[in-house]
């Protein structure tokens, strides 16, 4: 019979003699650089091999769903920033579209194009970080410096657009907080040129790098059937060979107008997941260039949605009707009809879903957040056992999760 003993990391070396032949429980995290946040893995080890993996989550649980039931729809937008905090703009858009779908709102073309633009910039920002830290997890430092440099430029662009670098809170139900500033689109084009060079450099540094290949190729292969059974979405699902992308297959916010390819993996190992993200970066740049070229004019918010979107500030102080509208919206929230809606958006980490149940009025009755990272992590007990302890960091990095969204 095997006996499992619980010991801390520091004791391992000192006590390795007496532990020979016994399984060992090792707690990885919640404060460990490879767990990208506050994930804790309770690992059972037989020597260097993992025989059991039990993820312990909830360290970042803030009760977002409970909070949402107690505030108006627009007040919840800042909370969506903090779900996948590496791509807050994409979360803002997904949440706004879910509520707008419930309200049956049709948005002007310019607003939709702005949202596509910000979503794809958020995807680049998220994937750049994902690939940078993945390289670091597998032992390559330099890549992170290259990708973080580009992210910094993105943050400057976000700041010009939204007023905040990180917690953007850019969308409102029925539109966005402000129009694109003058001279911003050419800067986005210039950024695209720069980031393409960086992607090529990262490609040269990593894709044929012997050490990187040994750390990723053939590790934690997820078959097509398994990926579907566990409900994986986004790049993790596509890396396993399922060509499903919500932007193509359930287009929202006008994605159908743009030309882009959906990269699909063959084997579903860590290396495929990396390759899919690299190609998605290039496709996002491609989409951004098209949006910049075809950015429509006109209104940037739903002007006819008087009970949902705030009136322009200039009119509030001069016109009675707008003043009343402003007052009602701020005190009672956007008026959303009763009903239920489920909407998933193709976020950088996978499909971010919002299930909203409304009884009418300005506050949701129930708001459920389906975080793609939560689902991605639920596959760990199935794919980690059988691998070496050193591979755990490689597997975690390849799934590209973020705990803010997993624990909510």
């Amino acid at each position, binding site marked *: 019979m095997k006996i499992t003993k619980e010991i801390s990391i520091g004791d391992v070396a000192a006590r390795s003699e007496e532990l020979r032949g016994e399984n060992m429980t090792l707690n990885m995290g919640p404060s460990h650089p490879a767990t990208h946040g506050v994930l804790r893995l309770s690992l059972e080890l037989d020597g260097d091999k993992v025989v059991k993996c039990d993820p312990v989550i909830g360290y970042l649980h803030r009760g977002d769903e409970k909070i949402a039931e107690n505030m108006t729809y627009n007040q919840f937008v800042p909370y969506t920033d903090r779900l996948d905090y590496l791509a807050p703009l994409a979360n803002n858009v997904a949440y706004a579209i879910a509520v707008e779908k419930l309200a049956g709102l049709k948005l002007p073309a310019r607003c939709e194009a702005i949202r596509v633009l910000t979503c794809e910039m958020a995807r680049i920002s998220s994937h750049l970080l994902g690939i940078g830290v993945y390289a670091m997890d597998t032992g390559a430092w330099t890549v992170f410096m290259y990708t973080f440099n580009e992210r910094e430029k993105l943050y400057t662009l976000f700041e010009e657009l939204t007023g905040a670098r990180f917690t953007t809170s850019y969308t409102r139900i029925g539109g966005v907080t402000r129009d694109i500033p003058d001279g911003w689109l050419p800067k986005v084009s210039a950024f695209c040129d720069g980031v393409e060079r960086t992607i090529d450099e990262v490609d040269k540094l990593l894709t044929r790098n012997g050490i990187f290949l040994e750390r990723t190729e053939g590790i934690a292969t997820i078959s097509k059937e398994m990926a579907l059974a566990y409900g994986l979405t986004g790049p993790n699902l596509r890396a396993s060979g399922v060509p499903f992308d919500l932007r193509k297959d359930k287009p929202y916010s006008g994605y159908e107008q743009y030309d882009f390819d959906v990269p699909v993996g063959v084997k579903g190992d860590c290396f495929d997941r990396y390759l899919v993200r690299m190609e998605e970066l290039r496709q996002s740049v491609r989409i951004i260039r098209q949006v910049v070229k075809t950015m429509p004019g006109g209104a940037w918010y739903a002007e006819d949605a008087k009970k949902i979107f705030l009136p322009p500030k200039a009119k509030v102080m001069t016109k009675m009707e707008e003043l009343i509208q402003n007052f009602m919206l701020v005190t009672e929230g956007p008026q959303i009809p009763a009903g239920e809606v*489920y909407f998933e958006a193709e976020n950088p980490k996978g499909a971010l879903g919002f299930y909203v149940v409304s009884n009418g009025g300005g506050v949701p009755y129930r708001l459920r957040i389906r975080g793609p990272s939560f689902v991605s992590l*639920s*596959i760990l007990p199935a794919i980690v056992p059988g691998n070496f302890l050193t591979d755990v960091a490689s597997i975690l990095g390849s799934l590209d999760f973020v705990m803010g969204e997993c624990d909510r």
Partner: protein
Amino acid sequence: MDAAALTSRFPATQDLAGKDMPTYRVAGSDLLAVVSALRDEQGFDLLADLCGLELQGRPVRFGVVIHLLSTTHKEYVRLHVDAANDRVPSVSSLHPGANWHEREAFDMFGIVFEGHPDPRRILMWDAYPYHPLRKDFPLAGIEVPFPAADVAEVTGQKVEPAPMMGGPFVSHGGKLSEGEPSALDQSWTEEKPKA
């Protein structure tokens, strides 16, 4: 989505005429058969989401909402299930991905999933006594006693310290040296003032 095949085979199934996607209310006893028929015969191969819900205007208090996605036909379907006596059969044998969603629904609402392989809490800690997403649970939360009474007596602390306490990047609990970065000085509370 072949609605007729579903309602004729499972007469207890009720079409709720969903606005955004086909929506059905399924009897708890039929749930496993319905989900498996949808998966194997109609191509709903991916469980997108499963969540608990406090129902309104229904004889039972809680329900479960399941969203299934077909990656081949590119469509969703929504299933509502009433949790009679707060119990619902677990679908994690058909969709392993439901495992964690069901653990969360149990954690947040107290819905018991019959046949679940690992019925533990997931977001809250194991000894936590409440189900926070129930409507009668206050937004501010309810203070729960610190699990270890002997530790609480000495330190006066009411909340569990962060589990990384004592880890390589965190300063030691109790008295902290001057200038050492610290998140929370636990050596004093309102009742026991700083010495």
